[in-house]
């Protein structure tokens, strides 16, 4: 499910375009039909309403599939209204007028006016096209500040655009929704301040966009509160430390781009299990139902759930017993186990929890409560297991994991006959940064380089933090000469980044060494050759990229 074949994606996109074309024709017709409701007699009105209801029903079912979630929701509500009319519950002229104008507005949504690049809610669920950079819109009244931010974010590999005015941003939003917004809290010369505008925008958009807010002074609590209410995920005071802002952006995107959560349900009551499964699937999760407790490890292995829902009272093996069996195996320790039970005896609940398991949910449970419970547990579990495998400062692979990745890629390269390249990268004079600007500033530099590398390298490339200020990357299907072009571009962009610390503004450079795979070297030797090339780069005066000597004449 991870990789969607390109052709399929294109095909689906094509169907999405056809659908939005259809909407452009059908929605205005709905409005026209609605207007006729006022002009016709009672029996004709009934027929028209039935017709409208059926069309709305169809729209409610289809729009979401093509990414128009909000439109689908609106259609569903209007369908229910039409239904109520048909049942002769509502016949007042006034509400009929409201219904008609609601139908007319349906066709005037900005989302439909222009064909979607990609349906907005599918963007969350699907892996992004790796070659497409993220779009960032910046709304900043001070031209110099905005332009500087645009330039720096472009260096990081984002597609950033800067707007001086609300009108300019509004026009751009009509054309295309960005992946994130950066808005100045104060906008001198505009009718509304930046945060008010952000609030309006939030109400207007189908899915809220990740929002970062710039302020003059960060410690103003009222502004902070207003920003959070407008949906801000980050608040930055001027002058803005852009690498830090970039790392926050990256975190917003990681949270957003998750795969659906996987939930395993074990319940001997088949109807109830299907019911839960339906509710959770409706909330966008992947659900597997199992009935035979003996199969638990097969399900765990094949489905790899992130949350397990266990019925307490199963005939052959109780929930707590099954939970203990799962907990006996170290591989599945990180998966939260939630009991489902009609048991309301507090003592018995506690007893079950002490043996194994993490939470209790009492049947009957409302759909919303079930979704919320499972969702929060799944979210937490995923964050934790991600954190365990990744370096806490950079979010990259840790020393051991990236070394293993180099070995895997080397093997793959030898099998396929393609050449892979290994890159060793080190920040120049890093100790000086720490000494002169403090460790927090040093951490910022490391994080910025990590993010820059992540942005510029391909999805197939693996990247890890090898040591303090040292990074290791492996680039499959890439010759050392090609790798040199890529890494050298990263080197230049890194040198252009400006960092802000108590000691003032500063910038850093990096050196890198590259070695390509060959039949004679194993993973350790490959890394050593890259390391030697890195040493040569340092020796030659730093701020440069060197390819291991034996590679030069091979081409």
């Amino acid at each position: 499910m991870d990789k969607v074949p390109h052709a399929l994606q294109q095909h689906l996109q094509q169907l999405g375009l056809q659908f939005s074309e259809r909407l452009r024709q059908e929605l205005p017709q709905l409005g026209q039909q609605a207007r006729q409701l006022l002009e016709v007699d009672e029996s004709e009105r009934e027929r028209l309403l039935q017709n409208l209801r059926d069309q709305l029903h169809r729209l409610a079912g289809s729009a979401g599939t093509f990414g128009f979630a909000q439109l689908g929701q609106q259609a569903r509500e209007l369908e229910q209204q039409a239904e109520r009319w048909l049942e002769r519950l509502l016949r007042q002229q006034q509400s009929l007028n409201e219904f008609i104008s609601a139908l007319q507005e349906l066709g005037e949504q900005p989302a439909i006016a222009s064909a979607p690049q990609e349906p907005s809610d599918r963007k969350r669920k699907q892996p992004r096209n790796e070659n497409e950079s993220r779009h960032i819109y910046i709304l900043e009244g001070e031209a110099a500040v905005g332009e500087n931010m645009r330039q720096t974010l472009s260096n990081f590999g984002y597609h950033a655009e800067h707007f001086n005015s609300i009108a300019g941003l509004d026009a751009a939003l009509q054309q295309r929704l960005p992946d994130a917004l950066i808005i100045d809290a104060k906008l001198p010369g505009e009718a509304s301040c930046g945060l008010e505008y952000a609030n309006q925008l939030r109400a207007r958009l189908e899915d809220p966009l990740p929002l970062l807010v710039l302020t003059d002074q960060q410690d103003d609590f009222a502004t902070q509160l207003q920003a959070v209410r407008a949906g801000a995920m980050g608040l930055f005071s001027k002058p803005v430390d852009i690498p830090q802002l970039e790392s926050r952006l990256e975190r917003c995107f990681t949270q957003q781009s998750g795969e659906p959560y996987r939930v395993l349900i074990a319940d001997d009551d088949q109807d109830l299990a299907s019911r839960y499964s339906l509710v959770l699937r409706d909330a966008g999760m992947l659900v597997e139902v199992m009935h035979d407790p003996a199969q638990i490890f097969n399900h765990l292995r094949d489905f790899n759930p992130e949350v397990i829902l266990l019925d307490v009272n199963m005939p052959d093996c109780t929930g707590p017993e099954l939970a203990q069996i799962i907990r006996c195996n170290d591989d599945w320790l990180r998966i939260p186990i939630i009991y489902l039970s009609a048991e309301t005896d507090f003592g018995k609940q506690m007893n079950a929890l002490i043996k194994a398991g993490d939470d209790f949910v009492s049947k009957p449970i409302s759909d919303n409560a079930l979704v919320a419970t499972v969702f929060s547990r799944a979210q937490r579990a995923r964050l934790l297991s991600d954190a365990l495998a990744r370096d806490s400062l950079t979010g990259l692979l840790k020393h051991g994991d990236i070394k293993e990745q180099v070995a895997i890629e080397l093997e793959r390269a030898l099998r396929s006959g393609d050449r892979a390249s290994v890159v060793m990268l080190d920040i120049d004079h890093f100790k000086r940064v720490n000494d002169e600007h403090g460790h927090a500033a040093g951490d910022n530099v490391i994080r910025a380089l990590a993010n820059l590398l992540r942005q510029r390298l391909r999805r197939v490339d693996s990247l890890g933090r090898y040591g303090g200020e040292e990074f290791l990357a492996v680039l499959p299907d890439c010759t050392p000469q090609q790798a040199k072009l890529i890494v050298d571009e990263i080197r230049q962009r890194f040198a252009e980044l400006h960092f802000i610390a108590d000691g003032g503004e500063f910038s850093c450079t990096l050196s890198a060494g590259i070695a390509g795979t060959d039949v004679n070297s194993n993973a350790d030797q490959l890394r050593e050759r890259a390391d030697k090339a890195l040493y040569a780069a340092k020796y030659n005066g730093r701020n440069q990229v060197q390819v291991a000597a034996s590679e030069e004449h091979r081409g």
Partner: protein
Amino acid sequence: MTELKRILHVEDDPSIQAVAKVALEAIGGFQVLSCGSGQEALDQVQGFAPDFILLDVMMPGMDGPRTLELLRQLVDLERTPVAFMTAKVQPSEVDHYRSLGARDVIIKPFDPMQLASQVRQIWSERHG
């Protein structure tokens, strides 16, 4: 246990029909016969021998439940597992569809990327 290969999909909305066909064929690797109405399904299903039937509930003319009733009268289709597709998912309605002989309900709107695995799961709940 037979394998899930052929799926009959009855759906009057051409956009949904197209996207489901792509999703089931390209992702699931199934063979799909798409029909725009219950009548069309009755006319064309002979000879296709579907392993699974997906029925839209609300269709003009012959609706999903009525189509199911008539399909069931055909030889070979008495026991073919069926799922309804519908936007309405009140628990009582799901029970109602079950009582009509449907195995499960697929909620609209559905995610094209998930449809094939959803169908496969409903299928294996019966056969697994």
